[in-house]
Structure formats: structure tokens, C-alpha cells
């Protein structure tokens, strides 16, 4: 049991970073479709079960895995060409590992952390590895000896110099106001109240730094409106023009993992992390039965809404009635599993496990909401030209963030 509990944070980190990529691709396609008055992929199925088109992204992953590896003959430096996608991938993967998904939990006298890498560097680790991801892109464009590739990596390089300073300064003002670089301490600081009524979330305490951080997070993950490095309308595919099969797949996965990591960072330092507003682990422990009931009620509400939505909208063909029935059984089974799990944990007084479960659920909900925001923004805004990105970074974001750091420092020092 204790081995199982030790493995939980790693499994969760893998689930939230790597296993969420097909789900994100699916969300991207379906949300893009719905925003543009079309449906998006909805045909791919396994025995009539379509899961709303989720099977399509699994099919894509399988295709990328089994595709032939082609190395263009004009590539002179094979080593750098091959190492670049892995660099992007590793950087995106490792930057996720310090995010806490819940408070510490204990079982049988042993203490476990819900954080894959239990380090107190927190934000430094994250910034270090997130910044490294761009090197993979720059290296890829240079090593593929192609004009489109080099143009893409030049754009990536010009983008890096324009946002990284503003991003670091925005994060610095969060660090000043929480007084720590450890994510866990930051989350605990956000469970208090601010000005008596508001939750002391980062978004409430530092609105300017929040805006700067959100803008620079989009630039850092190379997503629209800052995806000039890919620029498919001008430079084919930018830095990954010469990459095929799983080498391209690694870039593709790395982009989504960087997006997931940025969302996790935003949840942790802007939106109160794994805690609900006003409520910290201690409060949860004191009102355990009530909180468990609240979570089960919320889950049943979501299940009910989802079932009603399926009943109304799954009218694709004559077989979709049968398909809907399977979804109802799955959803109700999942709800029953959650309800039984909470009952078990509450009855047997495993309060820290119950709290951890609730916190992971809260984290997941916030995480998905931010990811939705990322996708929503991508399908709304046109791309910034790379000189516009630089102008935005140096002329607007940098002075704003410096002023914000100064004001924050003065207020924090004055208050103490």
C-alpha cells in the first residue's frame, strides 16, 4: 500500500502532462470546430463508441508512431537534428514535475507529498526548464539546414528575447507578495483572505502581473497569437518543416505539454492552486463529511448535466442511441465510484487521503478551465508579427512589469 501511495504523485504527473495530450488535441479540434460553426472530427470509432471524437487523436498517435522515419539527405549534422525534438520534449516534461496537485497526505504513520519532484525550488525549476524548451526549437531550425527552418528558429529566438524578461519580472512580483519560491507555500498563502472578503488568489492580489504572466505564458508555449516560429501561412511549418513521423510527433506533444505545464503554473500561482477559495486543508479536515458531501453533490450535478446534454445532442445516427446508453452507464459508474470512494475514506477516518482526493479534483477542474482558455484564445486572435511581439514585450510589458515589481516591493516592505 505504501509503495502504491508513493507512486501516486508520479502517476498523476504523467496523467496530467503526457496522457492529457490526446485529450488536448481532441479539445483543440472540437472547440475550434464549434467556434467556427462546424463539428470537428466525430467519426472515428471503436465498435461504434466514438467518445465524442476522442478516438481520432488516439488513431493519430498510433499513426505517428508507426510512420516511416525519413532523414533528408541534406542534413549535415545528424546529431543536433535528432537531439532537438527530444530537448523540447524533455524540457516541457520536466517543467511540469514540480507542480503540487494536493497537500501532503499521511497513511499508516508515513508522510507522502503530492508532488512528483519534492523540491522547494519550485518556480526556479519551472522557469529553468520552460526556458530550455525554446533551445530545442532554435536548434531544430538550425540543424535542419532549410531556409524555412532557419527563419522559424530566428523568429523563435527573437520572441525569446522579447518576453522572457517581462515574464521573469512578473513572476518576481508574485514571489515578493507570497514571500517564497516554493509552490506549496504559495498555494497555502493563497488560501487566506485579502481585504477581508476576497480570496487572496494571485489574480486578485496582482492583476497587472497576472495579465503580463498570461501574455508571456502564451509566448513561452509558442501558441497563437505568438506562434510566429511555426507561421504555417508564411514559412511552411517553421522550425519543424524538415521533421517527420515521431520526430515531428515529439514537437507536437512538447507544444501541448508546455501548454499543460503553463496552465498548471497559472493554476498554482494565480488561481489558488489545489485549494478552493477560502478553504485550506485544515478547514477541510475539520468539516470532512460536509466537504465530501459537497464534492459528491457537485460530481452528480456535472454527471446529470452531461447526461442531459448527451440525450439532447447525440443524434448523429441511428446507432448513437445505443452508444448514448453505454455513456450513461460509464458516467453513472464513475459517479458511483467517486461516491463510494468518499464514503469509504470518511467512514474509515482516512481524512488526509480524502482531502488529497478533493484537492486533486479541484486542481483538475481549474487546470481544464485554463486549458480551455488557451484553446479559446488560439481560435480567436490572429498571429502577432515578430517585430510586434518585440514591441509589445519591450515597450509595454517590460516597463509595466518593472513598475509592478517596484510597487509590490514598496507595499510589502511598508506593510511589514
Amino acid at each position: 500500500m505504501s509503495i502504491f501511495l508513493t507512486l501516486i504523485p508520479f502517476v498523476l504527473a504523467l496523467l496530467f502532462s503526457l496522457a492529457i495530450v490526446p485529450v488536448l488535441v481532441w479539445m483543440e479540434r472540437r472547440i475550434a470546430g464549434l467556434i467556427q460553426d462546424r463539428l470537428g472530427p466525430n467519426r472515428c470509432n471503436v465498435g461504434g463508441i466514438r467518445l465524442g471524437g476522442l478516438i481520432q487523436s488516439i488513431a493519430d498517435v498510433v499513426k505517428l508512431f508507426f510512420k516511416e522515419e525519413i532523414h533528408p539527405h541534406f542534413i549535415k549534422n545528424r546529431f543536433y537534428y535528432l537531439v532537438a525534438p527530444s530537448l523540447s520534449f524533455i524540457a516541457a516534461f520536466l517543467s511540469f514535475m514540480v507542480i503540487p496537485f494536493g497537500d501532503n497526505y499521511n497513511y499508516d504513520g508515513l508522510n507522502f507529498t503530492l508532488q512528483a519532484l519534492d523540491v522547494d525550488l519550485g518556480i526556479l525549476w519551472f522557469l529553468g526548464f520552460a526556458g530550455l524548451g525554446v533551445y530545442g526549437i532554435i536548434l531544430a531550425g538550425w540543424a535542419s539546414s532549410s531556409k524555412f527552418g532557419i527563419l522559424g528558429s530566428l523568429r523563435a529566438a527573437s520572441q525569446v528575447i522579447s518576453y522572457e524578461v517581462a515574464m521573469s519580472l512578473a513572476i518576481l512580483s508574485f514571489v515578493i507578495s507570497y514571500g517564497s519560491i516554493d509552490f506549496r507555500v504559495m498555494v497555502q498563502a493563497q488560501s487566506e483572505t485579502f481585504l477581508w472578503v476576497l480570496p487572496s488568489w494571485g489574480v486578485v492580489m496582482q492583476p497587472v502581473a497576472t495579465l503580463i504572466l498570461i501574455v508571456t505564458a502564451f509566448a513561452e508555449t509558442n501558441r497563437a497569437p505568438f506562434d510566429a516560429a511555426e507561421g504555417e501561412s508564411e514559412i511552411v511549418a517553421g522550425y519543424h518543416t524538415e521533421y517527420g513521423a515521431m520526430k515531428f510527433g515529439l514537437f507536437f506533444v512538447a507544444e501541448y505539454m508546455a501548454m499543460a505545464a503553463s496552465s498548471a503554473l497559472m493554476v498554482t500561482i494565480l488561481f489558488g492552486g489545489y485549494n478552493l477559495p477560502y478553504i485550506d486543508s485544515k478547514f477541510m479536515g475539520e468539516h470532512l463529511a460536509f466537504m465530501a458531501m459537497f464534492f459528491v453533490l457537485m460530481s452528480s450535478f456535472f454527471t446529470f448535466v452531461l447526461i442531459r446534454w448527451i440525450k439532447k445532442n447525440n443524434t448523429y445516427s441511428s446507432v448513437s442511441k445505443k452508444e448514448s446508453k453505454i455513456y450513461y452507464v460509464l458516467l453513472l459508474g464513475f459517479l458511483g465510484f467517486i461516491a463510494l470512494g468518499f464514503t469509504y475514506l470518511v467512514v474509515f477516518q482516512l481524512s488526509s487521503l480524502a482531502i488529497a482526493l478533493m484537492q486533486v479534483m479541484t486542481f483538475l477542474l481549474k487546470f481544464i478551465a485554463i486549458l480551455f482558455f488557451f484553446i479559446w484564445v488560439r481560435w480567436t486572435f490572429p498571429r502577432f508579427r515578430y517585430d510586434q511581439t518585440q514591441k509589445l514585450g519591450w515597450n509595454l510589458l517590460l516597463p509595466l512589469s518593472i513598475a509592478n515589481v517596484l510597487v509590490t516591493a514598496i507595499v510589502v516592505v511598508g506593510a511589514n
Partner: protein
Amino acid sequence: MGIKTVQRPQKSLKHSLYISALYGGLKTTIKKFTQNISDIDSIPTINYPEQQPSDITSRYRGVHRLTKRADDTISCVACFMCATACPSKCIFIEATQRTDGVDEKMPRTFTIDMLECVFCGYCVEACPCDAIRMDSGIFTLIAKQREDFLYDKEKLLSIKGAFGNEVSNAK
């Protein structure tokens, strides 16, 4: 004359902060998204192969066909107007003497290479006898080999018009 200076609108602070424009854009897309997700059936796309399009009008340029006159003879008189007007040079006609006594000339072979055709409709406009038309309503052109895309006279005559008005309007 000379250089005309276009006055660009002055950039205000509100303009250069982007915030209100970003908010407007996000509002538009989320409105569309919620509207579509709450009622999937309101999306105007169709389930194509199962559900065929219903908005193909008589002006739609589909696969070509050759028309016949009221007395069931071919209305083409092999004047080569269509082959001359064709920008992609994909109409191949060989003329011969008419045997049915209706007119002087008729095509012995009349072949359209559908792989070359750009469906511009110039042949239809050039035809003085209303002999070639594109009103078949066929928008899917499928074959298993290249040779099958060469539509000859018999095949072109066998295609029916999709909008009534079968007979040639000439004369």
C-alpha cells in the same frame, strides 16, 4: 497629383493597450461556442456522404453532358466552338457527315478529358446549339484508372440533366 497621404487613425491609449479589442474578440467566439454546444443540430454543416447536399442549383457547373433534339437526334453539329473556347484544351472532336438528314455535320467522336477540365463553363457559353451543358448536378467525379476519365460521346449523351429541360433549346 503625386503622393497621396492617407491619414491613419490616431492610436489612443485604449487602442494600444489591446484590452478592449481582446475582450471583444473573446466574447464573439465564446458566444458562438456556447450557442453551438448547447444545440449541436443548429450547426449548418451536413453529414456529407450519408446526407447529400440540397443546395445544388441549375447554375451549378457539374459534369458535362451532350443534349439531344426533340426528335432524339444529337444536337451537336461539330462546329468546334467549344474546343476553341476551352482554356485547358481538353475537348477532342472529330467531325463526320450527318447521316440522319437533320443537319450537315455531326461529331464522330466527342471526348472530354475530365482530368484536364477546369470546369470553367466556357464550352457551354460558346455552344451555338445548346448541345453541351453542365446541368447534370454531378459534383463527384470518380474513376479507378486514368482512361476512365476520358468521357466519350456515348457516355456524355447518356448523362441526364438534373433539373428537367432535357431537350436542346436550339432551333
